[in-house]
């Protein structure tokens, strides 16, 4: 079963996103912060990570950088409210697959996730 990791510091966003994908038979785990996400990645080895950029201590970009630093080439889609040129450039260079703009629209999210999973399977 495909594994999705949702990283967002918004309780409601991550919980309801999990809810949404579970309904579609996707195994979803969640993390509320960068550190927690990195720990989870080691244990659960997700197929795709939805990574929020703006988070408290450690930003999504930091998490992505750390992952690549550990030679983890897991698929990552960035989630962000504000699109900053510099961030787009950096994350693209780090191999992020794309950007999902907040406010999140579930249908859009579904499309992206299913596309990535479809490619995999």
């Amino acid at each position: 079963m495909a594994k999705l990791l949702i990283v967002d510091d918004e309780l409601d966003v991550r919980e309801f996103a999990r809810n949404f994908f579970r309904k579609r038979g996707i195994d979803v785990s969640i993390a509320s912060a960068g550190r927690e996400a990195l720990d989870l990645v080691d244990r659960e080895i997700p197929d795709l990570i939805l990574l929020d950029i703006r988070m408290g201590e450690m930003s999504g970009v930091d998490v992505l950088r750390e992952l690549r630093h550990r030679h983890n080439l897991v698929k990552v889609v960035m989630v962000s409210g504000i699109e900053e040129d510099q961030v787009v450039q950096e994350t693209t260079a780090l191999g992020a697959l794309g950007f999902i703009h907040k406010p999140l629209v579930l249908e859009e999210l579904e499309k992206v996730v299913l596309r990535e999973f479809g490619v995999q399977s």
Partner: protein
Amino acid sequence: MTFLKTTLVENFYTITSLVTAVGSLCLGLLVFHKNKVNLLNQRYAQLSLFIGMWSLCLFICHTTADVNNALWWNRALHFFSIFIPISFYHFTLELLDLKKKKVMLFWFGYAFAAMLAMLVFTPFLVRALEPKFDFRLWPVPGPLYLPFLLFFSFYSYYSLWLIYQGYRRSCGLRREQLRLIFIGLFIGFNGGSTNFAYFYNIHFPPIGNLFVFLYLLFLAYAIIKYRLMDIKIAFTRAGIFITVYTLVLGIPIWVGFKTMGSGPWLLPVTLMAFLATGGPFFYLFIQRRAEARILAEQRKYQSTLRQASAGMGRIRDLKKLLNLIVSILTRVVRINHALIYLIDREDGLFYLSAARRMNGGFSPLEGLAVVHPVVKYFSSTDLPLVGEEVRETIDREKKQDLVQVEVAMRQLNAELIFPVFIRSELTAIVVMGSKANGRGYSEDDLSVFSILSNQASLAIENAQSYEDMKKTQEQLFKADKMATIGTMADGLSHQINNRLHALGFIASDMFDTLKLRRSLFVTPELKAVADEFEYSLSRIQENVGRGGEIVQGLMKYTRKGEEGFAPCSIDDIIRTAYEMAQFKIRSSDFKILKEYDPVSVPKVKGNFTQLQEVFFNLIDNAYDATVQRKTELKEEGYAGVVRVNARVTDGLLEIILSDNGIGVKPADKDKLFTPFFTTKATSKKGTGLGLYVIRKIIEDNHGGKVEMHSVYGQGTDMILRLFLSKE
């Protein structure tokens, strides 16, 4: 008693002496009278006195039949003549401020003159009188005559030389003064020295004597034109008066000599001449006294007016001030009505700002346009309009433009209109009706009103600047509030945005669940419940969406610094922004006209995306404004258009978007840049953030400037200034 036959030369000589005598004495007295304590005035008066007295004695001497009497007068004229060169020298030292340097020569001159003067009535100087050439009588020089002549020549020409030196060294006004003095005195003294030729048997008649008078004219001119000796223009009249009178009285006397020769007629005629000269002054004096009596009442109100106008400066409330002015005018001057029209600097019209009427029944115009004859009249003059004068001038000169002014004055029921200028700009127009007692406005009234007008202009300016200051303070306070709101908004918007996300997200998920589990709702009741939930959830989503948009608008461009700044082509930006706007622009009537040359317009330094957003917003606003004008004004053949111009000024690119849309009401102008303020009829679409974001992007992020000029019902100009790219 036998009279010797007079000659033409002698007659001429005599007449010029009289002219010089009267002119010189009058001028001397006048200069002295104008400023008794000024040393230069004193010296000038002294010189004029001696020249005048010399000339007068000369006149008497040559009109006296008796030889003994003539000899006495001739010696008398020499007495005054002795003091002419030293007085001239004294005047010169005073004029050039050399008195301390030439002490020796100065005292020696006076001592020598005093010595000669003591001997003047002895035969040492003038031995006797006998006929010579064209003259019946001419003095025979005594042994002291040569020393006298040398003394005369030395001091005169030395003085002239000093003045010439002074002239060479000076500059500006002073140079001009000295030039005239030098020319005047040079001609005068050279003319005067023709008197001496006969003494040494040179047959050169003393015709130069006439030129003595010229020095007077030159000096008078220097005095008037170049403010020599602190005498003001009032002097002109006196100068002209003297010249005219000496000629007017001199000619008849000369004719008298011509026809009758010297005789008893001379006394009464001379007396008449002097009385006639003095007469007008006496008349003026009496008239002034009489007027003072008659006009005592008027004087009283004029002084009240002066006092009242002095107090006006303390009033800061413009409205109150203007009301005070009209009430002073109506009450103190007792006129039927007074109105004040004050300029509105926004539209240049003069609005009725204060009015007072003693008896009603007359409703004045509410405003005067720039083309109003009265306003036009004051564009070329600052003199008041006096009804009587205007009517008289029309009768006399048939001036067409004044006829319009007269009609306009009648419309305003005005007898007197005076302008108020602030820094030479016409600011207010004060209209005054006729006086309650039916009398006209006098010259004195006008001078008081001109003081009042000056005071009023100061007071109005004072009050206006106070109001401006208050307004600026309010604006500052507002701007301060705005800045606080701005910072708060930046921080808050992120938080609110997250809450809204979550809310929308939950709603979407619920909606999703409902859809997935639709099959569970089998009974009609359950179906209805599901329908209701679906509807409610869609409403929640809609509202969350709109809330999100607003917050996004606030958040999007709060970032400063020069990240992502690059040279941007304005043409590219406008083109892409217009493409973006095409999704909304449905009307084929709406056009964008680029009036700049896309090739020559230089690139600006900026963030392409942000500037795109700006121009998208501007085009969007312009479009909405044209749609609103179309639907509200329903003009035939109207088509919305926005013209875009760009040009470089002061190292900045100035981009002007002019639309012919509905425009902005004056009351809304201040609020337009405030977040959440919108005037759009389709307010469902307007978030009220467009202009706020534009200003933020252009001014905060790009360091540029945004300006808006708009006339309601005509259109709006948006002017942006952006820095040129140096790359």
